[in-house]
């Protein structure tokens, strides 16, 4: 599938019972992350374990979906589902609650992007059970 507005592929992610809450929340328009109930650490990538303190006691919490660009690149040679995409922006975004996530920046002129720029999450449908969190420049 392809997101009509950005023309980017929206591959269906591999979903396991462990990670389903993340994708379900995204489908419903929320960015939820696991947090450790023992040490309050935000956990990325999503999983049912806190590597910071070794706890199995984690809970899903909604986060703001706002953050800033840590780094970005315009990829001209995609692979897999992105092989036929002329170019797209791959980025690492530091979301305000403390996770650094790999994503795409969409609806922006790549030449206008800067490290440190504020961005906010948008969601692109990816199959029946998930949506992909991507980011756009914040107003």
């Amino acid at each position, binding site marked *: 599938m392809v997101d009509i507005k950005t023309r980017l592929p929206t591959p269906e992610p591999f979903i396991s019972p462990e990670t389903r809450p993340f994708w379900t929340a995204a489908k419903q328009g929320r960015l939820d992350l696991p947090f450790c109930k023992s040490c309050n650490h935000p956990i990325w990538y999503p999983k049912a374990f806190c590597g910071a303190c070794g706890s199995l006691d984690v809970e899903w919490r909604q986060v703001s979906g706002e953050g800033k660009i840590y780094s970005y*690149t315009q990829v001209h040679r995609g692979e897999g589902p992105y092989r036929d995409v002329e170019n*797209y922006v*791959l980025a690492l975004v530091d979301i305000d609650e403390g996770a650094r996530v790999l994503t795409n920046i969409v609806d922006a002129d790549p030449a206008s992007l800067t490290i440190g720029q504020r961005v906010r999450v948008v969601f692109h449908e990816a199959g029946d059970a998930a949506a992909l969190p991507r980011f756009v420049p914040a107003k």
Partner: protein
Amino acid sequence: MSIRGKAHIAGVYEHPARDLPDHSVQQIHAECAIGALADAGLSVRDVDGFFSTGQLGFGGVSLTEYLGLNPSYIDGTFTGGSSYLAHVGHAAAAIAAGKCRVALITQGAKVRGVIRGAKHTADTPEFPFETVYGETNAGIYALAARRHMHEFGTTAEQLAAVKVAASEYAQFNPHALLRKRVTVEDVVNSPMIADPLHRLDCCVVTDGGGAIVVVSPEIARSLNRPLVSVLGHAEAIKHSGLGPNDLTSTGATASAPRALAEAGVALSDIDYASIYDSFTITVIMTLEDLGFCKKGQGGAFVASGALGLDGVIPVNTDGGGLCNNHPGYQGGLVKIVEAVRQLRGEATPQTQVRDCKLAIAHGTGGGMLRQASVSLVLGRSDA
């Protein structure tokens, strides 16, 4: 317990081909195994330890059957391109512990002309959150390069200087995939792959591989070959499991000091360095993290000509992964082979470091989101 001087590299082999359409992967392993054992003056019957990445068939077991080995020790450590540096360290430790006496490490790869598809996601916990966004190796290293530029003022021309240095060496390597000398302008004018990385900032894609034979001191003394001692080895894994991972440094900051300490040498004693060069930025960051220059100064360091034969530290004198060979996206084994050639005085004459006594080989496996750094310090027997 230290491995210092408890094991020696007696044989090395780099497959001379870069494109092997009619070989099976196991055939490549076999040709490399025979090549390295012949270099050592040993045969498959002498092997009692086998080391591979375990990516082919049923882990390393399939290859022991194919090669007819009867090992008392087997290791299938896989850390991406740095695997083979880990294997040398593990082989030295196994030999020091008396588990085996002749350790064979092999690599075989066949990737030319294969279109890379979507990465396997079902059994890799992190991939579902990355591959859906069009993650590529070059894209991830491009994120590192842009951040390095942002923090330290590194330029595209400085990145290009790494490729230029590699091509200066590669012109003398008859087996190098790319032997043509290139300029900074050639690099920055080559097609953009993932900005700021151009095509010539990226390593070559080759078939082939190689092999290494590590032996105990008493076996080494019985062989009629110049001996290379395994002096130090250390590994460091860098990931985001404890919080956001920075993209401007590598695990070399942790592995190199431990490897040098085990070897009992200082970085300033090192005569030659094989440095993992998946991309030009990989070399700049690793040089900084090994300590050849200050953090953030890697760009200026490479642009000063530091990597040349008469520079501060000759690097990748075979042309490296950027020009010579990067079999199956894993450049670690070839890095060791060139370090051994230098220490034996068997490098291509135009690229031989004079009186090369001590070398470091450093591998970066994985990518910048998570990686396995392995540092290996090797020395001539009189070092």
